[in-house]
């Protein structure tokens, strides 16, 4: 009995000892937990306050949030304090490294099916990514031009449009792409970003109606061309995929059938012949200069104008290019597989003059600029928010106007040998009446050049806006 009692006491003592030691281990880790996380919290907090904060993000092509300026109104409305938090969250030191690391983490969330990945882009966010204009380098000399080009009349309200606003055009379908030049959804297939096209046939018909109105206004004296450029989806979409998307060739055919007096420049078929060449960027939503070259060649041939072979240009290759699609998708594979950005410098003589969107404040500059980072596409004309005039040594008196989105920018260097004067207008950033402008500039040829997303999404509405404004 005594033995039994002693055994019981021993078990009790052992249990107590075990409980005590477990308690000590738990206590040790609780204290370690508190100590380490206090150090981590204070360490990170101090670093975030002390370390230098970046002001721009090259990956996203945007200026990061700035520390807000204080005023009473913004304090009361809450925007001041909100902006401080935004500044703190947006300008984390080593931001790009962290973003790249986050992309790598995301790539481990699952596996790929036949090399395909899908991303949904928040367009509200991506709008702010969109690089509109390249800032001029500080050492860039601006020559003010005051006499070469006659400025438009001051009274810009004079509108000589003869065709009334197109009220009878088919109703515009809400843009499934949420505006802009690419869609909400991006597929990554074999290290290539492919914005998924959803453009509507109805919008394609409205686009054609808008372009037709220019021909009606400008009459027989002006040749009007429509070049709606297909995008990577027409060439690199995995054929077996049943992921829902729109058909660019179908809508291009639809547009072609609805043009009236306007010549269609079918670059889809031309580019298809060269699909195995490097005509589209893998990491950017734009085409490469080589794609634009084939499109420009097709256009020049249609105009019966001379066209310089690409071998006569100076070829410039910039390696390590990671374009906009990485900024939008954050896909690690795009970031880890950069590509070359190639462009071609024309050798003929030309001068380039830039104006603001009201065709004022001219200054001379380079046609091809020194862009950097993921904004290399800004090499062409340095962006969109401007009007550009190129005067060339082409042996004719033809004046071309290009009404375009950013796809049109890459065409321009290849047309410097074909037209005496080229005016480049971005339909989204133009403050004048376009018909007046085209007449005053003595335009003989008018080219609408934009990608399918712009022509059948929502950007095309600007074509009519600038015609009747």
């Amino acid at each position, binding site marked *: 009995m005594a033995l039994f009692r002693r055994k019981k006491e021993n078990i009790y003592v052992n249990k107590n000892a*075990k409980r005590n*030691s*477990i308690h000590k*281990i*738990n*206590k040790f*880790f*609780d*204290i*370690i*937990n*508190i100590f*380490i*996380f206090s150090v*981590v*919290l*204070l360490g*990170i*907090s101090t670093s*975030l306050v002390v370390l230098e904060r970046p002001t721009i993000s090259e990956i996203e092509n945007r200026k990061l949030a700035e520390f807000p300026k204080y005023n009473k109104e913004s*304090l*009361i*409305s*809450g925007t001041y*304090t*909100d902006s401080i*938090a935004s500044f*703190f*969250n*947006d300008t*984390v030191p080593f*931001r790009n490294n*962290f*973003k790249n*690391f*986050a*992309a790598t*983490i995301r790539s481990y*969330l*699952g*596996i*790929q*099916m036949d090399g*395909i*990945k*899908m*991303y*949904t882009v*928040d367009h509200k*966010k991506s709008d702010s990514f969109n690089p509109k204009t390249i800032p001029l380098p500080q050492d860039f000399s601006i020559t003010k031009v005051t006499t070469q080009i006659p400025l438009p009349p001051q009274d810009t309200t004079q509108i000589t449009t003869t065709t009334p606003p197109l009220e009878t055009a088919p109703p515009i379908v809400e843009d*499934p792409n949420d505006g802009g030049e690419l869609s*909400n*959804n991006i*597929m990554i297939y074999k290290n290539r970003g492919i914005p998924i096209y*959803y453009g509507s046939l109805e919008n394609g018909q409205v686009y054609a109606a808008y372009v037709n109105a220019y021909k009606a206004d400008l009459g027989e004296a002006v040749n009007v061309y429509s070049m709606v450029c297909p995008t990577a989806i027409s060439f690199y979409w995995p054929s*077996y*995929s*049943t*992921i*829902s998307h729109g058909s660019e060739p179908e809508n291009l055919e639809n547009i072609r059938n609805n043009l009236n007096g306007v010549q269609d420049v079918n670059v889809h078929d031309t580019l298809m012949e060269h699909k195995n060449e490097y005509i589209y960027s893998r990491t950017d939503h734009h085409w490469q200069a080589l794609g634009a070259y084939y499109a420009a060649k097709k256009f020049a041939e249609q105009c019966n104008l001379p066209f310089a072979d690409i071998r006569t240009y100076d070829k410039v290759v910039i390696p390590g290019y990671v374009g906009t699609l990485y900024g939008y998708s954050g896909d690690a594979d795009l970031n880890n597989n950069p590509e070359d950005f190639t462009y071609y410098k024309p050798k003929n003589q030309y001068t380039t003059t830039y104006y603001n969107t009201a065709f004022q404040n001219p200054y001379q500059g380079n046609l091809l600029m020194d862009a950097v980072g993921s904004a290399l596409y800004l090499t062409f004309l340095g962006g969109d928010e401007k009007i550009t005039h190129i005067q060339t040594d082409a042996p004719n008196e033809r004046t071309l106007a290009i009404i375009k989105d950013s796809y049109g920018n890459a065409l321009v260097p290849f047309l410097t040998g074909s037209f005496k004067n080229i005016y480049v207008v971005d339909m989204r950033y133009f403050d004048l009446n376009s018909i007046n402008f085209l007449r005053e500039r003595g335009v003989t040829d008018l080219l609408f050049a934009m990608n399918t997303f712009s022509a059948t999404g929502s950007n095309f509405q600007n074509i009519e806006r600038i015609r009747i404004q």
Partner: protein
Amino acid sequence: MVFSSLFFLYFFLPICLICYFAFKNITYRNIVLIVFSLIFYAWGEPVWISLLIFSATIDYVNGLIINKFRDRLGSKIALASSLILNLGLLFVFKYSDFIINNINIVFKTDIPPPNFTLPIGISFYTFQTLSYSIDCYWGKVKIQKNYFNFLMYVSLFPQLVAGPIVRYSVIENEIYFRKSDYQSISKGITRIIVGLSKKVIIANNLSTIVDTFFKGDISELPVLTTWYTVIMYSMQVYFDFSGYSDMAIGLGHIFGFNFDENFKHPFICKDVTEFWQRWHISLGSFFRDYLLYLPIFGKRIQVLNLFLVWFCTGLWHGASWNYIIWGLYFGIFIFIESTIGKKKMKKIPLIIRHFYSKIIIIIGFGIFFFEDFSRLLDFFKNIIGLNRNALIDDALKVSFLNNLYLIIIAILLCLPILDGIKALKNKSRIITFFGNATAFTFKIVLLFTSSVMLVDATNNPFLYFRF
């Protein structure tokens, strides 16, 4: 300000903790909490802080009146004024547009809606202050005579803007006596990291899946893709909201408060009634305690009370018909289950009960998601194949495989696996040591991963902020 932001985690919180632990005296600590709570609330919406203080002041004063005129007319008037003013605030700021828009539709009038912006957290703090007044009236809690103590309860930033709805009775004693010992602080840290990870790593990534398929036109979405997306959405809401609650409870632990749990693995429920005993527990118990058993329709027709509760539950979530339908939808199934009775329900094979409850709950989240009726109709057509859409397409396969590990982890974390592991923790010294070491390593990795992903996330408010 949101918990899941670098600004909160690495600026606001450290300063708040330093100030809090700089004092040992509970009164000073309470003052620190009031100051930081008001700064927290006022950070993005300084104007609406007046509403918060107004609501707190009303219920503080009403509490005093109820106490002074106990069992007399004065206490009834005070309670009525608390009900009218708190619900009035909610009515004006949350529901006025909804009601006026519906009046305009029904009576073809053209009354302009006032377009108030919804003050953050109004649905939570009005219910908290209301619960205090009712509890005072019922004599369940002692009157708080110190205004600042009461203001601290109402404005306490861990639970201020997105719950849980903490009753005054829960922290009544902790206002005066609470201990932030190493155990509670360590527990709090763990809980905050778990909550942050649930939100940033799981919920935010699930939300990109949901956006991919549900953001645009869903009329052509294949049947299985619709099911897949609504399942992802159900889990997104769970991880988002329970992640916030975890962070709130964790912060509470650090400051020495013990808030009640708000979620208890709701997806393991065997029927709809049980789901609501595990989901947003603080809201369910609020309606159960303050509305369900009130003899509004008389004791014999309690079924009307039940539907009133579910109507209110739906309406509480948002000023839109889909939320009301969502609430009543659950009310119907809970009514059916209560009519069948617990004993008979238990006789139904477990697998069928699980299957039935998950289907009902997941479809419920579809109703919750689509505020637009035509899209909701498309959703219903899709899930039963009435839109003649394909059964499946590559987009589903791609999305599923691209997020395979995320989905597996999310499903596993819906189950009480971690609780099971925790229960093993103190079995032996070795298990305790390695268990603690593993948990510690995981926490470091999770905090680092969440912080990196926060750098990448420009906008990630909690879903329940809008309620």
